[in-house]
Each structure stands twice: as structure tokens, then as C-alpha cells.
């Protein structure tokens, strides 16, 4: 079962706080490798708080943890804090402003039981140092 929704990204106070404490710490993963969903959307595909989910766009996919949004209602919209997780699925700018589309991205959300949420360090290592899925272009 999957859910087609609109993704927006941005700052949260926990992400800001964790980032200042150190992006190599668990706190950063806990604060930014999460996807805030409207409770109604969670029910639609049977996702519970803390479940690992796969969020995908045309760019790629990323595993994060589902969190029940405290800032709802926003049915049809999900939120992932800014960070390397969400940016592994965001696209480049295309409108002559230099601004990548960080809000309003069509995404697919699926359950990903048993999948692991990578730390920032491991995610970057996997995506950019050991080769991307196509195995090209990066060191």
C-alpha cells in the first residue's frame, strides 16, 4: 500500500538544536530523519508512530521514521526537516531563480518494515563516496 502526497521541507526547533550539538550524533538522525504525517494519512496506509517508511520521488528514495504530526491538520502534505535525508530525494532548480523546489514535491510513501534509517555519515558515504545507485559520477 502506498500514499501519494506532497512533501514540504524546512527547519524544526529539534533539527536546529541537534544540528548545533553535532551532525554526527544520534540526536541529529532522530531529529531530521523523520517524516511528519497527518494522523488521517497515517491511518490510510496503516503507518504507526516510529515505523520506518520509504519516501520516494523521481530523484531517489530514502528511509526515514514516521512521526505523527503535532502541527496538523495537513492531510495530503508531509513534512521532512531539512537535512541530507530529504535532500537525497529533492530536485534541482528549473525556474531561473536558483531556488531548488524544497516545498511541494510529489512523493510516494510506503511501509518499509525492517529497513534501517542510516546516520547522516553513513548516508553520505553510501550516496556520494561509495558510488550512487548507478555506480557513476561520484568518488
Amino acid at each position, binding site marked *: 500500500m502506498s500514499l501519494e502526497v506532497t512533501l514540504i521541507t524546512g527547519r524544526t526547533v529539534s533539527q536546529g538544536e541537534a544540528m548545533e550539538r*553535532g551532525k554526527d550524533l544520534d540526536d541529529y538522525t532522530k531529529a531530521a530523519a523523520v517524516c511528519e504525517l497527518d494522523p488521517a494519512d497515517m491511518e490510510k496506509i496503516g503507518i504507526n508512530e516510529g515505523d520506518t517508511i520509504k519516501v520516494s520521488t523521481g530523484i531517489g528514495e530514502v528511509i526515514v521514521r514516521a512521526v505523527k504530526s503535532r502541527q496538523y491538520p495537513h492531510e495530503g*502534505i508531509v513534512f521532512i526537516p531539512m537535512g541530507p535525508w530529504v535532500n537525497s530525494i529533492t530536485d534541482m532548480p528549473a*525556474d531561473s*531563480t536558483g531556488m531548488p523546489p524544497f516545498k*511541494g514535491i510529489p512523493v510516494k510513501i510506503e511501509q518499509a518494515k525492517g529497513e534501517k534509517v542510516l546516520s547522516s555519515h553513513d548516508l*553520505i558515504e553510501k550516496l556520494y563516496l561509495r558510488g550512487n545507485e548507478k555506480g557513476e559520477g561520484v568518488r
Partner: protein
Amino acid sequence: MKKAKGYGRMVTDVVCPFCGTLCDDLEVVVEDNKIKNVRHACRIGSSKFLAMNELKRPNRPMIRKDGSFEEVDMAAAIEECGRILSRSKRPLLYGWSSTGCEAHFVGIELAEELGGVIDSTSSVCHGPSVIAIQDVGYPSATLGDVKNRADLIIYWGANPMHAHPRHLSRYSVFPRGYFRERGQQDRELIVVDVRKTDTAKLANRFVQVRYGEDFELLSALRLVINGKELEADEVAGVSKEDILELADRMKTCQYGTLFFGMGLTQSYGTHRNIDAGISLVRDLNHHTKFSIVAMRGHYNVTGIGEVLTWQTGYPFAVDFSRGYPRYNPGETTANDVLQREEADAALIIASDPVAHFPKKAVEHLARIPMITIGPHMIPTAQLSEVFIPSSISGIEEASTAYRMDTVPLKLRKVIEPPEGIYSDVEILEMILENVRERRVRQMEREKKAGEGR
């Protein structure tokens, strides 16, 4: 400087170097060059100060050799930076928002010397606002003005309870002002957002706009405020009745301020949304007094815009490749330079594009030699060729920063940086000197070769 009760010394009037609110009322308790306590700061601000004690900070520069970092001395690191940058045909010098204006001066000089592209994090936050401001102007005000006068506060596509936690309490909603003696009771708060955010929960009125239709809602409000009939029953998910009420409230306030954030700049329409927001405020000034303020994110992102503008004439995305400054968002902006795979080297300072740029841009950064200057081992450093640890501006170095309303403030030095750690300014000056020496040597070589012919 006061003696703090019980222990240490207390440094007062400390400016918080995190967000564009630039709170200047912090009190920091210091003992043995360690920060023991921070008063008045929000969660993020205190975290920045208190993390200093726990952070494992690298204290020596590093160069990548055979895939992993090796510690080197400063001279070797500067030499490597000079080598990378001098060889590059189109270096990208990016970041600048979390350091003082003194570092900006040197950075711009370096960009000019190299014929590179210099861009700031504005590119991925309020760049579109700057573009709109250039088109239609900016009827703005200082935060002091807002605090003393405003009886109507609107946050549109901004969630300060998360991104600027003390903004409401210091400047907009809660404080008592000269003409607003009862503080919050004398003001009304309206929040326009796609989610019922933590800021919206505090509002007297929450307007839930459909994603991507802010421009439509702003235009509908302009229509009504300019005395035209609104024909639609609903715009952007907001009923006609609510739009009429909202317009009336805006027109009849004594002094209103519209604060806007990434909800407008990063959503569909980008600079056109801001254009509409500014035009709305301009229209409102035919009826009452109204101002607009961009919720600038990083503490000195406004500063790099100011310094770039007075030195080059352009606010961000400045390209020196022709020997004179050029500015063309969509072409000279960091993500576009990376998207077209033009940059062949990068110097990243006071920012973290590997965490905050889209994947394709990061892939290109991973391919080219990258230099990172900053206090922490951040994701960008992880992909760099050279990493030079620097002191923290606003905590370990005094510097100048511009608040979101373009008021410059002096940041204080609270503690000494760790032994052997240089400031951003010192590091950039050393790199600039190295690059210049290389150019002189190159010119001499060419001259000699010419004479030999």
C-alpha cells in the same frame, strides 16, 4: 562584565549567532574558558553555546590522502587550498551566512582574485525575495518599529516557533511597545500557512491556504483591498467571507507588519509570491501603515547580502569570471553552477551544502576538489579534499552581523578559541595571500619564458 552568582564570570549583552533574530540580550556564564550556562536564549541558541563543551572539534587542518583524512599543519593546508583554487577555472565560493562581515570582505576579494562565483545561502532561502525586492521595492521597517507600533502581525509561510523561536516574544506579538503598552493584548496575530503550525496555534486567526496557491490568495486580497468585487466563492481553499474579513482587518489596523518565510520563497511561484506580498503591503499603505519583513534564516545571511551589494552592486550569486561582477539568478546561482557541472573546485565556508543541497548538486560537489572551512566536522567536510577548522564567530571571535531587518550588531567574544584554531578571517587572508603569490610567480615565469623567446 558581572560576577555570576556562585561561579565564573558573566558576560552580558551577548548576541546569539544562530538565527536572523540576532537576540542581543543573552547572558553567558563562563568559567575557565568554558561556557557553564546561557540565559535568555531559546533551545537552538542555548544549544549552540552549550554544545561547545561537548563537541569533539577537530583542532588541526586535514587533507585527504588515499581516501582518508590526514592531519597536517596550517601551512600545508593553506598551500593545498592555494593549489586547488589557483588551478580552478571556475571556483564556487559558497556559504558565508554563519560568519561575520569581516570574513565577507576577504571572501569577496578572494572571489575577484580567482575570477570565481561567490554565492550565499540566500540562494536557497530568500534569494527569490531579493529578486522580487529588486523588481518592486521593499516597504520595510526595523523590528523596533514593529515592537513599538504594530497592532497587527501576520506570519505568512513562516513558522518562527521553530525557525526563530524568540521572534514573537522579542519583537512582534508579546513584547510591550511604546504604543502597545499591554503587549499581546494590544495586538492581533494572523498566521497563513499550509499546516496548522506551532505558530498558527498561537494565532487569533489561522488561515489555511492550499499548497502552491499563496499567489492566488495574495492577489485576491489585493483585489478586495483595491475596492474590486471578488467573484469567486473561494480562493486557495479560503472562503470569500474569510478573505473579505481578512482584507478588512488589514485595512483597518493602525500599523500592520507582514513577516514572510520559506513557505513563500520555496513554494511554487517563488519570487512571484514575494512580488505579490510586497505589492499587497504597498496597496495597504493607501489605507493605513503597513510594512513587510523577510524572516531571514541564518544569523548573518543578511550581512553577506549587504556586503556583496556595497562591494559589487549585487546581493548574491555574483560571478567574477569576466573580471567584473555579473549577477544572473538561474545562471550564477550556486545550484545552477553545480547543475551545469561548471564549477571545478569549491570553497565552502560557514554553511553545509552537502546536507542542504539537492542530490544532483551534492554529486557534483563530491566530484570536484572541495575545501571546507568551519568549526565542525559537518557532512560537507566529509566530502572535502581539505578541511580547515575555524573558531566560532560570535562566541570565540567578535564580529559584525546584520539582523533580518538590516540592523548591524556587534557580536561579542565570549571565550578564547582552542589553541591553534584560527578565525575565518585569518584563514581566508592566508589563502588569499597564497593565491596572490602564486599568480605573481606565474607572471614572472611567463615573463621569463617571453624573454627567452
